[in-house]
């Protein structure tokens, strides 16, 4: 299924695009170009690379990194668990919808970062406040997409379980959760992105240590290359964590019809699979042309 040569070419293209962007940056900043946009104050790519190398050898960088990661992972995991639970509850129970629905709808539009005062009032330490804000940021996307996914489940799946004698918990475990995983992962992908935005902002406002805190510190002491080191770090961490969520999602939803996530595959499915899909059962004359049922 995977064709190595074009795949390699695509990675090369991606690398080249990134390199070209960095080259343009180096050019604009190195030549101190001031054409309405002012690049003369900007650190060059090489400045940033040096600053980065210095940071990597110091202890603070790794403390910042682990602090930020701990905060985001605790907040995000909490949001994943409670968001899925809440989404299922609201979608499946009318009582839960009536009790929680209005509250959730009112709290949802409030940007998580606007909850900083609430966090400061509520929690004894800054650390817990930041986790709370990160949690709130990811909670709503997860809850909303879980709710939609659960409501969109094919009804015959549930009816099949009912006529097998399955009860509420069996339906939850065998139909509702696995069936809504694709939607849930949609919410988790959005959630992890918003979580990063909020953890960094919260650290800038009230943190001690953390990538966001460090970035803001560097800005206040006019260490521009340091600011950019912070930004690159945030970018890479965000990219890594959302890729992890994405990969986990693909692994768990491998059962989805394949074409939905092979964007590059242009080979029509029918010429691909037809020869291997002939019936081999006991019935007489059973050649099935599959296309009709897909």
């Amino acid at each position, binding site marked *: 299924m995977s064709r190595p040569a074009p795949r390699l070419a695509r990675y090369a293209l991606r690398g080249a695009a990134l390199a070209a962007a960095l080259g343009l940056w180096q050019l604009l900043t190195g030549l101190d170009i001031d054409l309405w946009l002012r690049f003369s104050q900007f650190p060059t790519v090489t400045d940033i690379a040096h600053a980065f190398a210095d940071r990597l050898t110091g202890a603070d960088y790794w403390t910042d990194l682990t602090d930020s990661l701990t905060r985001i992972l605790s907040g995000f995991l909490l949001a994943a668990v409670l968001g899925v639970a809440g989404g299922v509850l609201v979608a499946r129970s009318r009582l839960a919808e009536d009790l929680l629905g209005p509250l959730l709808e009112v709290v949802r539009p409030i940007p998580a970062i606007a909850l900083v005062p609430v966090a400061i009032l509520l929690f004894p330490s800054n650390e817990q406040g930041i986790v709370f804000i990160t949690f709130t940021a990811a909670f709503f996307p997860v809850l909303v997409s879980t709710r939609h996914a659960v409501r969109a489940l094919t009804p015959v799946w549930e009816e099949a379980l009912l*006529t097998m004698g399955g009860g509420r918990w069996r339906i939850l475990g065998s139909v509702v959760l696995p*069936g809504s995983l694709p939607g849930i992962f949609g919410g988790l992908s959005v959630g992890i992105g918003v979580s990063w935005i909020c953890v960094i902002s919260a650290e800038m406002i009230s943190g001690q240590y953390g990538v966001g805190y460090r970035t803001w510190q560097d800005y206040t002491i006019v260490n521009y290359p340091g600011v950019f080191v912070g930004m690159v770090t945030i970018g890479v961490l965000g990219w890594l964590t959302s890729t992890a969520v994405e990969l986990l999602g693909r692994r768990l939803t491998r059962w989805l019809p394949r074409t939905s996530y092979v964007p590059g595959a242009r080979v029509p499915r029918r010429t691909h699979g037809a020869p291997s899909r002939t019936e081999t059962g*006991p019935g007489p004359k059973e050649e099935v042309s599959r296309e009709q049922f897909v």
Partner: protein
Amino acid sequence: MSSSSDVRSPSLTGTRLTLHGAALGRPGAPVLDEVHLDVAPGEILTVVGSSGCGKSTLLRTLAGLLPPLSGEITQNGRPLTAPSAERALVFQEDALLPWRTLLANVELPLAVKGLPRAERRIRAEAWLERVGLAEHARRRPHGVSGGQRQRAQLARALAPGPRAILMDEPFGALDAQTRAGMQDLLVEVLHGTGATVVFVTHDVDEALFLGDRVALLGAGRLIAVRDVPRPRERAAHDDPARIALRREVLTSLGS
């Protein structure tokens, strides 16, 4: 085959399903009225009618998914109020769980029943073998043909040994040749289970081939129930009695 005989033994008697003057449908939207129907233990009753006449509603009511709006429905004389593993339902299509392999789909009702893991596996494999899917057991529903999916559904329905099997146009989406093969397979796998079958279809020939009796639905009610001469004999299609019945069924459906 030793294990599949285990499967058959507990369910040698089918269940009797009876509707007494029942009105069926969703609240506020009745589809069928005044239905008197007695499905005898172990018989195959086919139900024909044009689309939208309430065939699926009848089946869902018998399954216990849809309570009757009025009247009464009983199983072996006792009121039927909720779905139960004793009455398996086979759907038209896409009722297999797409994230489970065919094997895991067939194992599911056995797990619901509380069988230990090892026994589930043995029984499910035996049933997949019986419907000719042994070598596709580890595939997922999207990876096999529509006919194969319906066979897997059949295996899933029969594996736990239900006493009634309710089939909602199970072969309706298949092409003619696959459909004939599936009918033969159905007759074969039902043999010895003793289960009562209610089989809904819009195909008159299918109804007359499979059914001991055929029930005609139309215009919001049960029009008639007729005995089918020489059921499940392929050669009987030109039997004069069968031809006459076929004409009668077509006429009443056309009206």
